């Protein structure tokens, strides 16, 4: 049961003055069923899409379900589809994405919907694990600490992707994931590429084996939406290309 009376009162309140408002369409529903619902939200000089969603939940409809935590682009939990494109909503200014006075906010693409704007991230993280995303150290606590030279080419390559916050924006942007649900997706493959280049990982062949199966890196069509939409400006496309090159070398018996 939604608090429709509360929302209608609040909506009337929001549009009663001379305040400039935006027409915000928000996805409401669970699983495969639902529809967009329209809200009038006051337009501010400075506001993020997350501010807009929070305003709707706090002032217009407390039943609106969404997810966020840090509000500063660190935790990767607030990603949603904004005007049809995946974005981290806490760092997306409304002014940059507003279409006239309209804004459309939906749950992340390519993931099941728990409710309203909260997508189920389980498939995303399960693929992360399937791609060997868990670090398997080659040394025990009795061994000397592994020396890592920052200037080593492998470390330089690995460093390129360690700022991934697992927001799943790349996963939502990927058309290959949309067409091939078994495909591991850009974030998981980028993580595998990081581990492949990590000097602390001794079994690189195992990393490659995890990402060259039927849902692995070889399914990527190099469309590049992952790199285009990554909010941290990472480059999963190049990481996947690196995995493909490594897999090809390995196929011919080359060193992993």
């Amino acid at each position, binding site marked *: 049961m939604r608090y429709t009376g509360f929302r209608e009162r609040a909506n009337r309140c929001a549009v009663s003055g001379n305040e400039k408002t935006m027409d915000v369409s928000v996805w409401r529903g669970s699983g495969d069923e639902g529809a967009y619902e329209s809200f009038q939200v006051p337009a501010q000089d400075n506001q993020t899409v997350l501010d807009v969603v929070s305003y709707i939940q706090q002032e217009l409809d407390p039943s609106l379900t969404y997810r966020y935590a840090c509000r500063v682009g660190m935790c990767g939990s607030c990603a949603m589809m904004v005007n049809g494109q995946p974005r981290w909503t806490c760092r997306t200014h409304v002014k940059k994405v507003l279409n006239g006075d309209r804004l459309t906010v939906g749950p992340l693409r390519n993931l099941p919907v728990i409710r309203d704007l909260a997508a189920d991230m389980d498939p995303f993280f399960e693929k992360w694990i399937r791609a060997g995303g868990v670090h398997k150290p080659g040394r025990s606590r009795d061994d000397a600490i592994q020396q890592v030279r920052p200037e080593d080419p492998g470390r330089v390559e690995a460093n390129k992707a360690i700022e991934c916050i697992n927001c799943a924006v790349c996963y939502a942007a990927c058309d290959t994931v949309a067409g*091939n649900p*078994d495909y591991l997706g850009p974030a998981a493959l980028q993580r595998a590429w990081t581990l492949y280049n990590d000097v602390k990982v001794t079994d690189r062949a195992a990393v490659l084996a995890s990402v*060259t*199966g*039927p849902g*692995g890196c*070889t*399914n990527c069509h190099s469309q590049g939406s992952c790199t285009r939409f990554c909010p941290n400006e990472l480059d999963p496309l190049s990481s996947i290309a690196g995995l*493909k090159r490594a897999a*090809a070398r390995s196929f011919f018996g080359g060193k992993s």
Partner: protein
Amino acid sequence: MLGIRLYMAQRLSAMVMGPLVLGHLAVMIYAIQGGLSSAEILGRTKGSIPWFLFYGAFVLAVSVHAAIGLRVILHEVTGLKDRLLEVFTWGAMALLIMTGARAVLAVTLL
């Protein structure tokens, strides 16, 4: 739906096709520029082992490459997988090889 073996098969077949496509285009342009008739073309290809190998390799590379490409498209568009997808892939490859081989044999056999 594309493991490393199919991926490599598609890439390697593409590498084979590259120079063969250029060679085929060059032959077509040469034949048209020179005003060769069908009979004159067949006169050069009939009984020719080099032309048999050239277009035979072309047919094999195309069959492998196209069957794997069609497999990917079919899976991503329709969701078809497992045994049916395997049957489609091998069926498409067999069909392309048969029709291609028929054409190659028709112009190279004496």
